[in-house]
């Protein structure tokens, strides 16, 4: 193509009307196709198994496109934080940037260095992506639904891929799997940067699994069930989200989720300034992209989990509750859930572009010497509340949390240990008056 042609295409694509018009047209086309093919898949919608499979397909496609959009969104937020525009060349407002990125990842040469452990080198990115996607199986996207053509006494369908009764344990198990992707990448690359990145990732991810588990245990004590949809229904039935009961547990889970996803301020495994790229130093083209997709998918899973556990999932006051199982209520619940997840992703991104990175010994100290003791104390307090039968009492829980917070702040104030690196570097200031 000649240069003027490319220029003309660029100008056309940068018009908002073109982008939004094309988007609307595609949406209309998909809706029309779905409406036309409705008799074909109507029987599939009525059985739980086939409905779950449809949810699976829709969610996989949705998540993968969402991760691509997330990367654009993240760069936009980075631009906003650093007072610049962010990507704005490809399409209006940079909206076509994910497409351009995807094409570039697909078309670039995929270099496999000579001395790598090839099977593991190929397996690692696939594992990183797949392990992050697996967590989506138990997210209760929109509660339950009964289609208009189903008999009114039929059990409503659950909008989950698998309504496991060991939902929590499954999520923890799959979450632990994501360590393998990173560690294998670091090991297989036969590169010192990658190796150190992998080791760091392993130590960090297993260390932060403990506070995560403790925070989840607190929610478990409150709800008494491992099923995520039951936990959401409990919150929806009472209208009291678990965040109001246990803000400290939420904080534990949030920090651990950030660390598990290798997001800043816990992105030491891929610290550019020290380790070049960390575990993905030797990766290029599509394999590199898969690590990124995996990271963003992990972030979306964590957000969806936190929303289900602490923010009432699809519940919002004044909107259809658990007893409303019509299809339009399902759509509203889905919209509420996705909005909450999007807000959490935005929070994750803002944190990344606001906070500086930890040092490795600080990272380990935060996990082992502050988050784990807090979690242990909180768990003991919640167990005592449960014994008294007050585990769902907002005031009792809040009082316990406040008490714990007061003890923590007091001990932090009395502690002689420096908190920040700057405090460590500076000589101790003598505040006594000179006589």
């Amino acid at each position: 193509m000649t240069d003027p042609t490319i220029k003309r295409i660029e100008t056309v694509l940068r018009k908002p009307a073109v982008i939004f018009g094309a988007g609307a047209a595609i949406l209309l086309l998909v809706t029309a196709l779905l409406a036309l093919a409705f008799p074909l898949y109507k029987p599939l919608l009525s059985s739980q198994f086939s409905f779950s499979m449809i949810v699976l397909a829709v969610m996989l496609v949705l998540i993968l496109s969402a991760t691509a959009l997330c990367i654009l969104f993240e760069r936009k937020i980075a631009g906003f934080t650093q007072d610049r525009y962010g990507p704005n060349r490809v399409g209006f407002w940079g909206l076509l940037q994910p497409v351009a990125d995807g094409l570039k990842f697909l078309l670039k040469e995929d270099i496999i260095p000579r001395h790598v452990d090839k099977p593991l080198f190929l397996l690692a990115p696939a594992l990183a992506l797949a392990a992050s996607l697996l967590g989506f199986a138990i997210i209760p996207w929109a509660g339950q639904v009964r289609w208009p053509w189903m008999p009114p006494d039929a059990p409503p369908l659950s909008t989950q891929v698998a309504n496991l009764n060991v939902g929590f344990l499954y999520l923890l198990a799959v979450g632990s799997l994501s360590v393998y992707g990173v560690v294998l990448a670091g090991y297989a690359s036969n590169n010192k940067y990658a190796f150190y990145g992998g080791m760091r990732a392993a130590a960090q991810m297993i260390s932060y699994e403990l506070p995560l588990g403790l925070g989840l245990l607190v929610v478990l004590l409150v709800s008494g069930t491992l099923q995520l949809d039951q936990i959401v229904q409990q919150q929806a039935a009472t209208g009291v989200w678990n965040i109001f009961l246990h803000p400290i547990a939420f904080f534990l889970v949030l920090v651990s989720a950030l660390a598990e996803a290798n997001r800043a301020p816990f992105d030491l495994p891929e610290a550019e300034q020290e380790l070049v790229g960390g575990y993905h130093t030797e990766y290029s083209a599509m394999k590199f992209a898969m690590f990124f997709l995996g990271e963003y998918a992990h972030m979306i899973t964590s957000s969806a989990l936190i929303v289900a556990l602490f923010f009432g999932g699809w519940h919002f006051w004044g909107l259809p509750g658990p007893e409303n199982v019509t299809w339009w209520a399902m759509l509203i619940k889905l919209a509420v859930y996705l909005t909450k997840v999007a807000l959490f992703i935005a929070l994750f991104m803002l944190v990344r572009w606001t906070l500086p990175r930890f040092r490795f010994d600080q990272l380990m100290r935060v996990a082992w010497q502050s988050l784990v003791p807090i979690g242990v104390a909180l768990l003991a307090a919640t167990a005592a509340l449960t014994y008294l039968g007050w585990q769902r009492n907002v005031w009792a829980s809040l009082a316990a949390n406040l008490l714990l917070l007061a003890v923590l702040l007091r001990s932090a104030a009395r502690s002689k240990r420096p908190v920040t690196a700057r405090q460590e570097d500076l000589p101790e200031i003598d505040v006594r008056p000179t006589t």
Partner: protein
Amino acid sequence: MPDTTGIHAEGGVQLLQGLAIFALAAFLMAFVVLVFGKLFRPRNPNPDKGAAYECGEAPVGPGWVQFNLRFYVVALIFLVFDVEIALFYPWAVVFGGGGAPNAGWEALHAMRAAALWDMLFFFGVIVVGFLYLWRFGYLDWVRSLGARTDEPAPTTAPIRTETVAPPLAEIIAES
């Protein structure tokens, strides 16, 4: 609250099938993308591209180097604690769920007390182990003994007080 038992009556096998299909789909998606790209990608191998990246220098030795032993200690501590926390999950479900719903209040109270005290004892054992690790510095990433004392670290090598008779010098002096 809507009835959820209908879902489980449909059978756990289907649930597992669904999960298996999901896992398969997730892995397939990863591999399809890789194989699909192979049709379009250029392939220009070059000895420099194949070398391990070390900031432009020729790589020194293999990438599998010795690493800090602290990583190993962390993994060991984690293993113990994670297994113990995994034991808490079944307890938390039963304890938080209220135990037997048909039991009388007195029996329920007794059961709860037993569950709480038993678990607190177990918890105490973990906490003692945790405090041991903390006290003896296994949770500190940097384990240098010098940083612990208030005395300044010696800046020069200690002066040798005992006189060492150099045999070679003696031999030279005698001859």
